[in-house]
């Protein structure tokens, strides 16, 4: 019974230490996000140009009716399909 009491005390301590630590750790992570990441985001914003360039690209290719990437994708899918449906092992 003494042993059980000791176990209870240990479990209680573990519970306390664990919850303190979990809150401390994830709390620090909040600080990390607010202090570090947010500032990084301001210093290095996502490159807008690149995105718009990409969009432009897609537009151009879509104007051609069929994008060469889609053609490539379909032919790749065709070859994958063929491969996978070969006779077994």
């Amino acid at each position, binding site marked *: 019974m003494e042993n*059980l009491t000791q*176990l*209870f005390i*240990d*479990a*209680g301590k*573990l*519970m306390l*230490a*664990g*919850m303190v*630590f*979990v*809150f*401390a*750790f*994830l*709390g*620090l*992570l*909040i600080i*990390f*996000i*607010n202090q*570090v*990441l*947010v500032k*990084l*985001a301001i210093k*290095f*914003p*996502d490159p807008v140009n690149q995105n718009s360039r990409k969009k432009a690209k897609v537009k151009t290719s879509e104007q051609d009716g069929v994008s060469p990437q889609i053609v490539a994708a379909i032919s790749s899918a065709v070859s994958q399909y063929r491969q996978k449906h070969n006779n077994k092992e």
Partner: protein
Amino acid sequence: MEQLNTLWMSTGLANFEFGQIVMMLVGCGLLYLAIAKNFEPLLLVPMGFGAILTNIPVAGFSEVGGLLHYIYYAGIDTGIFPLLIFMGVGAMTDFGALIANPKTLLLGAAAQFGIFATLFGAIALNAIPGFEFSLQDASAIAIIGGADGPTAIFLASKLAPELLGAIAVAAYSYMALVPIIQPPIMKAFTTEEERKIEMAQLRHVTKIEKVIFPLGVLMMTIFFLPAATPLVGMFCLGNLMRECGVVDRLSSTAQNELINIVTIFLGLGVGSKLSANAFLNVETLGILALGAVAFSIGTASGVLMAKLMNKFSKEKVNPLIGAAGVSAVPMAARVANKVGLEANPHNFLLMHAMGPNVAGVLGSAVAAGILLALVGQ
């Protein structure tokens, strides 16, 4: 004729033990839950099958030279399989919602009270004759409250391998039962008004934030809790591969073929621990009961934490998303969304709930690290 006699003596029928039959039925039960009820089928199908295989008399699947023996000792005893799964999960995880609303980390932290309260509860069970959980056993059981499969398997394989089967069954079953367990608790601890709270749209998160985040998490784990670095490290590696944008083919393999291959083996290996003498005892009942308690306490803690935060902050949080802090990604977030929609049909909480949801993954990995550091030898 002696050949037919030898054949007969080698049949299962002539060699069955009662426990093996029961455990095969348990395996069939897991398959039924997985296939007919869609209970976490990706793990439970191979695991239920593994439970059947390991209990076949004569065949020796889990003895030296048997297939499941190799799988278990190469992949689970070493911790490699759960860590690879965790890498793949990291490659599937988008921390955007968490970074946009970091306060939700507190919800993920609060929900881990399910783990530590259960640890206390497991020790309390020792008061009942028949239960003799050590602090290691109790810790391995408590992690069920983390609602995270690979974390539970990893910790149980280190602290209490003989309980691994029961712990995995409980963890995955309750993860599948999240849509049934959580809503009543969520409603009991919130008012109709609270459930109607609408939340502001999340800000845009830039690429650099998403790239630096896993590295920051890893650094903090290194500084404060090295014992959690196997889990957190592999998770962050997967997430970094996802977000860095230069190794898409590795990220894709990690979240598809590699995780699929490892999942088959992990399920078979965990199933191989479902032997009669390890599973058919009163401790398993205790573990199943404690698992339900753990999920319930975790859910309640998350909800109550959200209400507490609302006391101190202008920007209100819908307390329903606190329930997602138990992890069980993405099921718990979906449940929060659904219960929210019932109260307010224009209130879409899904993205908001993803914050505490992925915070819960980190939280339970941290909790696992604490338990390893304090009760692992």
